[in-house]
């Protein structure tokens, strides 16, 4: 921003922080202070409005920018945003060709017949030039039609807050079973939505949650359409799921992070083995595996024989989509000279997979890869044994060298609806926030649909139909520990690689953190996805007697 640059060069007599010396330190907004700006917390709204206006003015009159850059006004102390912005705005008000300044609309409810009252907040910074009389004239003759809001006023901010408040109230009434109240709240929220910007921010997220809530209230049977199955919705086709998944992969780094981290861990675990077997719990388009194949091709000592078993839902139209992906991967492996064999296992649910289907032989090193699949097994039918135990049981029998587990870092499996709702509102708001930086279309739009489906499942489904039962890392640690797995620490290579991967992304808000040997990827210090690695604890005294397909040296582990 050139005006700012001129300001910094002009204001290099900056020993003068005395301009705001009267401001107590406690008043100053902490977050902005970290960025080097001093704004009083109470002034934040005022400053935001002024910045919006400044932006509007600049957009409307690009010619004046150069004037500003060469203006005689000296901008002192640019870190004091409030007065700096005001002084810039006053600059704009000097030039007559500008559109008249928009008045403050701080506490006004904009209704159809109301003329916004013209109010000029008593503010010392406006008075240091000859603008005021001119302004007064302009303002008094001004009546802005309510729908011509180019400025995000305080009113809109309030609407956002009101929406969140209404969402919580609605969720609570749903939990209490007061469906008529909930229904009327939905109507109120939908009318409020019309006055809020739904293309970004809280408006967009609120829209999805309102839809999910109304599904829950009005059409609970229909929401069970989102039930069941290995990789997604029952009625939505596998093809659709794969498509959405692929776009989610492109639009944001979560899946890339998952793939690269898991691959690094698997690569390290396979070190020294000549026959390796990877079992992928959700093959989709097999996007994870090219990088592993390439890394194996280049590993010192040459590539091993790689077998890949991909599990996925059966394709309805007779197309063997698993086999097609297998063929593509085989083609890739052939071009880089890696001996490769693929096997597809079609199963609607992961607990239907039996050990013999995987055809693991005793001499190979096995890796199990689960990207956001284990949480689907947490819903249980009281008449049958819990699916998670079944699956973890046969994984343990496989005795894999490594099991990579990537899961959402969220607590969406609590028994109380209100808790789940609140938690998911925060979680998905953060996720949508991170998605804002993506500019690829249609990737972004389809990624949003992908996320929206998750939201719908968390909020509007119950029982077996609800399969998005996300649990945080701490819970998975205890669950897997009890099931006979011990954690493997992800090395520093994985961390370095994740960091590097993130610097390549255009948004600077992602952060990778290490958490007791596991990695989490988050947005602005809120972790959203976690990656961890596990191996089976050898159990010589197991009462059930773990059937060993392998000649295991328990000592050697």
């Amino acid at each position, binding site marked *: 921003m050139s005006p700012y640059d001129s300001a910094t060069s002009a204001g290099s007599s900056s020993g003068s922080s005395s301009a705001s010396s009267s401001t107590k330190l406690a008043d100053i907004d902490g977050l902005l202070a970290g960025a080097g700006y001093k704004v009083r917390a109470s002034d934040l709204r005022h400053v935001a409005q002024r910045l919006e206006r400044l932006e509007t003015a600049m957009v409307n009159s690009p010619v004046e920018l150069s004037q500003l850059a060469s203006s005689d006004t000296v901008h002192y102390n640019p870190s004091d945003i409030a007065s700096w912005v005001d002084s810039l705005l006053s600059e704009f008000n000097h030039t007559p060709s500008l559109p008249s300044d928009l008045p403050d609309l701080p506490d006004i409810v904009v209704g159809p017949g109301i003329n916004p009252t013209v109010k000029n907040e008593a503010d010392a910074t406006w008075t240091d030039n000859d603008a005021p009389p001119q302004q007064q004239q302009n303002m008094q003759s001004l009546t802005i039609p309510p729908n011509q809001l180019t400025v995000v006023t305080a009113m809109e901010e309030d609407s956002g807050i009101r929406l969140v408040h209404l969402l919580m109230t609605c969720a609570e009434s749903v939990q209490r079973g007061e469906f008529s109240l909930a229904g009327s709240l939905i109507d109120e929220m939908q009318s409020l939505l019309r006055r809020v910007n739904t293309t970004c921010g809280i408006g967009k997220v609120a829209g999805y949650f309102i839809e999910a809530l109304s599904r829950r209230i009005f059409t609970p049977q229909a929401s069970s359409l989102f039930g069941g199955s290995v990789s997604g919705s029952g009625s939505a086709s596998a093809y659709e799921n794969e498509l959405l998944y692929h776009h989610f992969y492109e639009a944001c780094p979560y899946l890339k992070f998952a793939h690269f981290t898991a691959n690094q861990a698997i690569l390290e675990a396979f070190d020294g083995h000549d026959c390796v077997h990877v079992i992928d719990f959700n093959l989709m388009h*097999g996007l994870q595996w090219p*990088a592993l194949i390439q890394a194996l091709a*280049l590993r010192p000592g040459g590539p091993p024989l790689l077998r890949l078993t991909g599990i996925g839902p059966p394709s309805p139209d007779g197309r063997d989509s698993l086999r097609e992906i297998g063929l593509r991967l085989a083609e890739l492996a052939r071009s*880089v000279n890696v001996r490769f064999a693929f096997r597809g296992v079609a199963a609607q649910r992961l607990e239907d997979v039996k050990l013999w289907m995987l055809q693991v032989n005793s001499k190979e090193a096995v890796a199990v890869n689960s990207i956001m699949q284990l949480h689907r097994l947490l819903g249980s039918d009281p008449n049958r044994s819990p699916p998670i135990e079944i699956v973890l049981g046969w994984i343990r029998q496989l005795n894999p060298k490594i099991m990579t587990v990537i899961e959402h870092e969220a607590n969406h499996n609590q028994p109380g609806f209100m808790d789940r709702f609140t938690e998911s509102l925060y979680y998905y708001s953060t996720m949508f926030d991170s998605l804002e930086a993506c500019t690829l279309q249609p990737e972004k739009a389809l990624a949003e649909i992908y996320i929206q489906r998750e939201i719908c499942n968390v909020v509007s489904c119950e029982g077996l139909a609800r399969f998005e039962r996300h649990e945080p890392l701490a819970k998975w640690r205890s669950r897997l520990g009890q099931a006979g797995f011990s954690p493997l620490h992800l090395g520093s290579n994985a961390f370095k690689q994740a960091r590097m991967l993130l610097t*390549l992304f255009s*948004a*600077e808000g992602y952060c990778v953190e290490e958490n007791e040997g596991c990695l989490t990827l988050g947005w602005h210090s809120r972790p959203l996805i976690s990656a961890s690695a596990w191996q089976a604890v050898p159990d010589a005294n197991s009462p059930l007697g773990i059937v060993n397909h392998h000649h295991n040296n328990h000592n050697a582990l």
Partner: protein
Amino acid sequence: MVKAMRQMKVEEKEKEKKPKFQMNDHIDILIEVLKRLDGPSLGVAACVCRLWCTLTRSDSLWEHLCFRHVSSPPPSSVRPVVVALGGYKRLYMVCVRPVLSRLRNSDSELVWTRDEVQLSLSLFCVDYYERRLGGGATSASSLMFLCNPVNV
């Protein structure tokens, strides 16, 4: 350029039989010079004349460019892999150049680490695979994020 050189030749003959240095007669030296150019300059060089165009198309020049800044030379197993996945020129255009510019905001010493090389190769491989997946699902936009400007 070629025309100018031809003119020079004619003038020469008219003057003396003093041999002058013609770059295009010494392809090995030409290649040595081209090896030291950066990516955009290589692109420009390709437009000079047919000979230069042919030379700059050679993948070995681009291989040199890709790994020029690597602290230790890559193992010999890398070449067949890269060639199979589309060649060094493509590796440079699609991965190396954006990765380098993204990872280095300042114009500091351009030295690759082995990790950065590996990451680029992995991304390159994913790109190859997505192109082979073809039509249906999506275009190969896996690396498009590398082209987006960083917003600070």
